């Protein structure tokens, strides 16, 4: 059976060059980077070289990069860390209603501790309006946290504009760049951000490693206490192989990002065109242009998402739903809900997220398979009538 992976926004395979780079740090250079002896100092040297690669990747300065256990910790650290360190100034935070749960649930946690959170709405494409950010800022506002690009439907937010506003108003600005990094350029100066989260495993690096960029001078309180690691900001023995792997992965991404973005956009558009030709009543979620090159989120009228995924899985194709079908209520995705997508359609949302190994042949195969699957499932659905019968209905 074929094996076609179209779930790169969930996680990516580790690049073989990355694995090669990591291996010596498990067996040969295994020292604790905090140790004084040569075993430790060799590891320390490698960690600091890796840190410089991250510095180059996002246009930061030395000393502004903190390694974390992943994107979730980076988001938690940015939000809670800034909130706790600046609560004497105020207890108001602005975010959007379509953030990843690492951000949303950190904000909800802070709400329980007396912080006030403004969850900005989005338009039908999932875009926030920078003017609304401006309006939401109060004297008490200490942080704005907006994702660079959405993980479910790929819409790219107007970060540079929000960055300008935040800077003018003197409010810290955090972006969750976990989905955008490696797919589109991410540059902290251009975007005017004070804090930025990254994750290794979304950019063909290992799991369990992430980065929080903290602009020099940003007041932030550590969340993990222990030794004096990471300039007293994040305790815990450095995950040396993970750090090396992440650095190698972004080093590769830095070189390939522009070309790969063009290739993936073409491939993704081919998938969309092909699906659109073969299947009626398909809806695209997210911004038609301002979108990650690899992401395609679609609903097929009358069909529930998990059923499509299961059918595709039988054909060796891995995709994911936008909706979390975890309970009896089949609660649709908070992202699509915020965009005002009809709940019934939202329940059928499927996310295709392409990556570096995907080929045109695979994409064509997926479109072919999908056509049969959707028509089969529509045959079982009480909610789907063919166009002809719909037109008849309208005429009646």
């Amino acid at each position, binding site marked *: 059976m074929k094996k076609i992976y179209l779930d790169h926004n969930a996680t990516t395979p580790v690049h073989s060059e990355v694995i090669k780079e990591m291996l010596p740090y498990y067996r040969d250079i295994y020292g604790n980077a905090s140790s004084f002896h040569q075993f430790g100092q060799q590891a320390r040297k490698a960690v600091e070289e890796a840190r410089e690669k991250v510095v180059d990747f996002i246009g930061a300065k030395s000393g502004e990069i903190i390694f974390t256990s992943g994107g979730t910790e980076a988001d938690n650290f940015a939000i809670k860390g800034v909130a706790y360190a600046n609560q004497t100034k105020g207890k108001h935070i602005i975010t959007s209603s379509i953030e990843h749960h690492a951000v949303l649930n950190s904000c909800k946690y802070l709400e329980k501790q007396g912080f006030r959170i403004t969850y900005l709405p989005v338009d039908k494409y999932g875009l926030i309006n920078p003017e609304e950010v401006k309006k939401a800022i109060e004297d008490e506002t200490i942080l704005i946290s907006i994702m660079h690009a959405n993980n479910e439907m790929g819409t790219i937010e107007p970060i540079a504009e929000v960055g300008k506003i935040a800077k003018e108003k003197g409010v810290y600005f955090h972006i969750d760049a976990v989905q955008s990094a490696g797919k589109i350029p991410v540059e902290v100066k251009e975007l005017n951000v004070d804090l930025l989260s990254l994750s290794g495993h979304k950019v063909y690096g290992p799991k369990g490693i992430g980065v929080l960029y903290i602009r020099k001078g940003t007041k932030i309180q550590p969340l993990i206490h222990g030794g004096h690691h990471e300039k007293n900001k994040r305790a815990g023995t450095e995950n040396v192989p993970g750090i090396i792997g992440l650095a190698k992965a972004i080093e590769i991404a830095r070189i390939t990002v522009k070309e790969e973005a063009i290739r993936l956009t073409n491939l993704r558009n081919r998938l969309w065109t092909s699906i659109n030709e073969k299947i009626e009543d398909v809806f695209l979620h997210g911004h038609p242009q301002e979108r990650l090159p690899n992401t395609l989120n679609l609903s097929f009228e009358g069909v*529930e998402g*998990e*059923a499509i995924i299961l059918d595709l899985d*039988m054909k060796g194709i891995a995709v994911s739903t936008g909706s979390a079908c975890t309970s*009896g209520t089949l609660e649709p995705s908070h992202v699509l809900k915020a965009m005002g997508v009809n709940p019934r359609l939202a*329940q059928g949302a499927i996310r295709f997220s392409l990556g570096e190994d995907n080929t045109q042949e695979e994409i064509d195969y997926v479109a072919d398979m999908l056509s049969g699957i959707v028509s089969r499932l529509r045959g079982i659905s009480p*909610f789907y009538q063919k166009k002809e019968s719909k037109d008849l209905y309208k005429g009646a």
Partner: protein
Amino acid sequence: MQYTEKVIEHFQHPRNVGEIENPDGIGHVGNPICGDVMELYIKIKDNIIVDVKFKTFGCGAAIASGSMLTELIKGKSIDEALEISNKIVVEALGGLPPKKTHCSVLAEDALKFAIDDYFKKQGKK
């Protein structure tokens, strides 16, 4: 998703899919705005379910539950059919993941509503 072979088999080849023209009873359950929905159509002759069809907007477990239920009740008397609970459907499918139990409840409810609808229609005759 950890589905049993039986669930997968019914998902891929569901039995008795469709609608019945002039059915003797219809069971329509689920939230019309959001969530799983199941429709069950029954034809009854001499107190026996002689034909049954279903449609569902739902996940793999909902499709398999609907399919299994129709197999279990076809040819049965109304009383026998009313004995078929969601537990029996789950057992017949070799089990369902816990968070998918509601799909089998949906099937059981659809059946009860369909039989209820049949009795109502009978009462009116």
